[in-house]
């Protein structure tokens, strides 16, 4: 409950609901204009009831859109405690209405407060049913409610609503204890009535008594003696309800200071008595502006407390009208919420529109960049094929040239090697080179787009080289043959890809030759023979 109160207080401060609270008592009425839980202005009407109604109507007409909460504090209040059977939530209002009609037939202002689960064997919930019975003091006010333009938010009972005020004051007062079954009493001095007594047990309303007729008495002593009797009567009454005098009663008095001081000295039959004026009480209660001209009447304190509550403890306003009011309120607040949401949505929409504007500009910029780049790309592409012939044809010609170059043989290394290997006694009389031409086989490989692809391997170039050596300087055939072999060995090492063969020696000593020597002939002395050797190299030049 404390959490609910806190939340209610927060919502009151945040929303600062403006409303009228009309506290109707037997001796008059007070109309207060609230902003949240702050009393902005107030007016007491203590004349005849007709005058009071007229003044209130005039005051309400000045602000016809402000809702009004009616708070009854008249003698004609009826309370019943009864049990309702356990029914589902949908059926509960019907059962409640039937019960109220049974308890208070013909009464318009009636309602119920759920107290808790029933004790005993019968299942159900205990309810406190209350009504304002029709009377000449109440009926004009009821008629007025049908005539005013101001929407009626709720009709409440002061004793029921102020139970939580008593709880708040009791919790913050020093020396008081909160025990199970604790009895508390709030005595407050009202200008619109007299002395209101609200007695609670376990913070639930036990009884409420109004002692009127004090308006004309000014003497504190007389008031004290009267109050002593009234409080004594109250204690007698609650004793019948189970109050144990030994446990005592916590009491709070809100009213005139001299009466409070006298009450302290009067040894009331209470355990703790806390005396405060409305200004002190409003600080504890969390309301403000409740101090009137006199400084001691608690009407405004109760009006601010009971009228500012968003969730009343007990509403007497007929269910149909309450629903109608809730619907109106829902629509009003829904309209406001929708208006606020529309503003937020408009801001969101404006933000989206701004983003679209930015996105459009960004798109135009990016697209222009892309188009320019594409144009540059197209220009580069068109340049690629510029020239006398297509680049592919150029590459074909380059490839053909490369193939021809690969097939070409440089004979300089041959001449160098042979020249370097010949000894002083041997001379080259002839050299014959035959290179196999690969001309008819020229063909193009498919083009490759990979610039780092390896060059295709060149086709081997084959051929033969025939060297004819003049060995006439040699007088010894063995030396000439040796020279031929030596030169062949050098050529074998130099031209490793070719096969070197000695095909003719100065003497017919090769396996294919027929070697014949006549009697007395010295073959090694080289007589009359042509001293020539031939070396053939065949195979790959490269």
């Amino acid at each position, binding site marked *: 409950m404390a959490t609910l109160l806190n939340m209610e207080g927060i919502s009151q401060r945040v929303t600062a609901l403006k409303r009228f609270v009309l506290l109707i008592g037997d001796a008059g009425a007070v109309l207060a204009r609230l902003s949240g839980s702050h009393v902005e202005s107030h007016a007491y009407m203590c004349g005849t009831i007709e005058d009071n109604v007229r003044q209130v109507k005039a005051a309400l007409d000045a602000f016809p859109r402000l809702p009004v909460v009616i708070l009854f504090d008249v003698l004609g209040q009826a309370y019943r405690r009864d049990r309702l059977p356990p029914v589902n939530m949908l059926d509960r209002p019907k059962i409640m209405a039937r019960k109220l009609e049974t308890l208070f037939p013909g009464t318009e202002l009636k309602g119920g407060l759920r107290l808790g689960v029933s004790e005993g064997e019968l299942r159900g919930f205990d309810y406190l049913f209350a009504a304002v019975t029709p009377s000449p003091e109440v009926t004009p006010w009821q008629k007025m409610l049908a005539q005013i333009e101001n929407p009626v938010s709720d009709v409440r009972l002061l004793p029921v609503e102020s139970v939580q005020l008593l709880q708040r004051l009791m919790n913050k007062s020093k020396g008081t204890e909160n025990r199970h079954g604790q009895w508390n009493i709030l005595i407050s001095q009202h200008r619109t009535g007299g002395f209101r007594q609200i007695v609670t047990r376990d913070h639930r309303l036990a009884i409420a008594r109004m002692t009127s007729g004090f308006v004309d008495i000014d003497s504190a002593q007389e008031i004290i003696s009267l109050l002593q009797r009234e409080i004594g009567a109250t204690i007698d009454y609650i004793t019948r309800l189970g109050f144990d005098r030994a446990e005592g009663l916590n009491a709070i008095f809100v009213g005139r200071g001299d009466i409070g001081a006298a009450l302290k000295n009067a040894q009331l039959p209470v355990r703790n008595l806390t005396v405060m004026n409305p200004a002190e009480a409003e600080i504890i209660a969390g309301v403000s502006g409740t101090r009137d001209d006199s400084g001691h009447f608690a009407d405004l304190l109760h009006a601010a407390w009971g009228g500012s509550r968003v969730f009343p403890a007990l509403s007497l306003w007929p269910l149909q009208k309450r629903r109608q009011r809730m619907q109106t309120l829902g629509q009003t607040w829904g309209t406001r919420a929708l208006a606020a949401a529309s503003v937020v949505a408009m801001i969101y929409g404006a933000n989206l529109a701004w983003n679209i504007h930015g996105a459009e500009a960004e798109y135009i910029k990016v697209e222009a960049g892309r188009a320019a780049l594409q144009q540059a790309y197209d220009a580069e592409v068109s340049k690629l094929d510029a020239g006398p012939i297509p680049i592919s044809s150029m590459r074909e010609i380059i490839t053909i040239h490369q193939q021809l170059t690969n097939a070409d043989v440089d004979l300089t290394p041959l001449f160098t090697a042979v020249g370097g290997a010949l000894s002083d006694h041997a001379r080259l009389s002839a050299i014959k080179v035959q*290179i196999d031409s690969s001309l008819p086989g020229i063909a193009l490989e498919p083009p490759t787009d990979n610039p780092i692809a390896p060059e295709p391997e060149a086709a081997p170039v084959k051929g033969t080289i025939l060297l004819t050596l003049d060995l006439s300087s040699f007088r010894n055939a063995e030396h000439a043959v040796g020279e031929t072999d030596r030169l062949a060995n050098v050529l074998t090492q130099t031209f490793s890809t070719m096969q070197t063969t000695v095909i003719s020696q100065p003497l017919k000593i090769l396996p294919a030759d027929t070697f014949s020597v006549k009697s007395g002939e010295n073959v090694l002395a080289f007589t009359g023979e042509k001293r020539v050797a031939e070396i053939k190299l065949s195979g790959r030049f490269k």
Partner: protein
Amino acid sequence: MTDRTAMQSSPTQGFAIAIVIFGLIIGACYGYLIPELDRYQQMTDAARDATINVNVQMGDLRTRAARDSVDRNKYELLVKDGFLGQQDRLNAARILETLRVKHRISGLEYQIDAVQKNPVLRQSGETSAEVNSSKITLNIRCFLDDDLRDFILAVKNALPGHVSVAAMEIVKLTPPSDELLLDISRGGASELISGTVELQWQVVQHIKQEAGL
């Protein structure tokens, strides 16, 4: 009572109007503005992707252009070297005569055979160029074998197009006897070397495609 009814209908009307206005705004936001924003963002993203793509293609293109430039230079060198076109035999005769004198070739006979046309085949079987090849046979007589080798090398370099040696035979005519050496020392000219060289003279010629093919 009429006033109260009017007052009760006022919040209802206001609520209805507020709902309509709110609905219109939300409808405009979610029905038009958000899809429009999404559309522009998607178009922008697509344009960015396309830009990146073109940039990548541009990079490839530059690489290709650099490669093409290298190949163009090679091609221009080949053109300059006379590798493209027809064989100019008159010019070849002039070059051979010039080189003969320069390299002290005492006797030069040569024969340039008729052109053999070898089409260059692509993988697809198409032909866009042909190699015009002529065999040049040189019969040379000279004093030193170095002169002969230099002459052949010079012919290879000087003739336009590509020239390669297909066959070569160098034969010493006379062994250097004492009398021959004495004659040479007195200034007597003598041919000591005879050579026969077969060269392949090759140039490339484009085959122009007929229109419509």
